[in-house]
């Protein structure tokens, strides 16, 4: 694989709650190669979205703070940049798209103007150039008749077209890395397939790297090169898609896979993971998955397992991993 374009080292997000600190994202480290699509999966509250907001240094509340060794992108360390420097990185180097396009597009601004705004700001293009570029980007994301549609308002677009428009806004600034936070969750399944296909095409055409956040392993399985699984704020397994899906080593990854409705072809009882995720203000001292884990030993309760390399491009945080030969 090509050298890492984005290097994240020990990134934490900590919330101040009264007198104590609650760690919401705990020392996240990963690399993202050029043209790589990384799927970040986990259940709600596992810290996926917060981790990606932390990369952009856009934390949703002043009570949250960022700690970490480094977030390196294009010879810059995002954690060391001042706010003006960070502003130049957002959009130009790191683009982001969200789950609900309606709430992230300005309803009073024409689609073309929203795309052109970023182009003019980051590339210093003239009004006319930016408009031409906006039409070109709209064409690339598959909006029919972009010359007319560039003057539409968001409400004139359908849900799928709005998601395409938001992708166009992000692409207009020509970012190297695109963070897509549940980009298809609000869409119907047939439209979901269209948008995922579009993201794959953009990667192939522009060499764009992506972090795709999803709670649906099915979405990730069909689009990503590598998968990182998060549980209660920590990365528990990270590896190539093929390896992780066919031979998950962490009991939680295996559980998530087994729970997927498509995991078992026949009818009948579904697999489940008993219990529920821990509250982040009352975390167990040891492994956070231990109370729900069938493999747990006393060690797991006592000591938090650290993420370590177990094979080429495969990392795991577990004291009692599943055997490499499949589910034990």
């Amino acid at each position: 694989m090509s050298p890492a374009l984005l290097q994240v080292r020990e990134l934490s997000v900590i919330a101040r709650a009264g007198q104590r600190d609650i760690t919401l994202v705990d020392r996240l480290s990963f690399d993202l190669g050029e043209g790589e699509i990384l799927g970040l999966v986990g259940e709600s509250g596992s810290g996926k979205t917060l981790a990606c907001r932390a990369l952009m240094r856009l934390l949703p509340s002043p009570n949250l703070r960022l700690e970490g060794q480094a977030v390196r992108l294009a010879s810059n360390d995002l954690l060391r940049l001042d706010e003006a420097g960070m502003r130049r990185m957002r959009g130009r180097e790191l683009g982001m798209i969200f789950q609900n396009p309606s709430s992230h597009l300005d309803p009073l601004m024409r689609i073309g103007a929203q795309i052109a705004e970023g182009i003019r700001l980051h590339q210093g293009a003239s009004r006319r150039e930016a408009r031409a570029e906006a039409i070109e980007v709209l064409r690339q994301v598959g909006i029919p008749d972009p010359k007319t549609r560039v003057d539409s308002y968001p409400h004139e677009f359908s849900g799928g077209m709005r998601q395409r428009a938001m992708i166009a806004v992000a692409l207009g600034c020509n970012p190297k890395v695109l963070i897509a936070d549940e980009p298809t969750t609000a869409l119907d399944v047939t439209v979901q397939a269209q948008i995922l296909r579009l993201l794959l095409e953009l990667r192939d055409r522009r060499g764009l790297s992506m972090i795709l956040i999803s709670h649906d392993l099915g979405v990730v399985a069909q689009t990503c090169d590598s998968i990182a699984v998060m549980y209660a704020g920590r990365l528990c397994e990270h590896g190539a898609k093929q390896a992780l899906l066919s031979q998950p080593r962490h009991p939680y990854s295996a559980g998530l896979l087994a729970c997927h409705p498509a995991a078992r072809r026949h009818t009948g009882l579904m697999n489940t993971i008993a219990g529920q995720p821990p509250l982040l203000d009352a975390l167990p001292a040891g492994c956070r998955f231990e109370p729900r884990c069938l493999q747990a030993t006393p060690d797991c309760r006592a000591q938090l397992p650290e993420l370590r390399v177990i094979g080429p491009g495969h990392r795991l945080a577990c004291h009692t991993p599943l055997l490499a030969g499949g589910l034990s």
Partner: protein
Amino acid sequence: MTTLLQVNDLHVQFPAPGGGLLNLRPRKINAVNGASLSLAAGQALGLVGESGCGKSTLARAILQLTPASSGQVLFDGSDMRQGNRLDIERLRRETAMIFQDPYSALNPRQRIGQILAEVLHVQRRVPTAQIPARVAELLGLVGLRAELAERKPGSLSGGQCQRVGIARALAVEPRLIVADECVAALDVSIQGQIINLLLDLRQRMGLALLFITHDLGVVRHLCDRVAVMYLGRIVEEGPVAEVFDDPRHPYTAALVQSIADIDPARRLPQHPLAGEPPSPLQPPSGCAFHPRCRHALPQCGADIPPSHAEGGRYHACVHPRLPC
């Protein structure tokens, strides 16, 4: 098996916004457009389709929560649309609904015990003195500890709240439960727990289940039959395994193809279904699916395809996919 619910050519219309200042020419949206289906006692029918296709409206019209404009809803043989107050009261006693968002379906100011006791009290199912015992029994039935009766919904997790919603539905000892996207808001590990609970209750109590969802994977686990809706019409209906493995209607085929599968060897469809569901305000002529259909013939835009029966399966398409 006896037929518990029979829906014949049901139409539901809503007044549409617009139509001018004086509303001289009121426009109508046909949310449900001639839907027919039947459900036997103890059977589970999955109702699938994309958002806005009329799944929830159909379910609400069946339960007489939304007035239908024409058609029949036969519950246990009698037409509820023509029914008097006693018929509707019986319908309320013998059917129950589970909702998508478990938090907003429960009163946040009531304790779980009060929420369940209220149903028992209104329906006069058990003597007042026995209500606390029955509440504990109901909680046990859905796998919750009896102590939770003292808690309020805000202090429960999403999965626990959904279990309370199911316990409330069971309180009337219904013969039919309508579940509207009841696992869509839950995490996958919790989703499985709720589905297994419904499967178990169905078996033990002989419940009939109308299960509305956009997730085809869940239907495969839970349901015997599946009905696929597109823009107010049921375009295909049949046994789950047959419909999924060998869909007749091109829309069903596209839906099945779009299921996000965890098999890494399965790729995204190379040419996913283009376009998006049309607006019910301006439905296409003829078959509503024809503008997106790759196999559409000129006649598809002209006539609404009638429903064909074929060995326990139904489809509404003039050139269905051939059996594999």
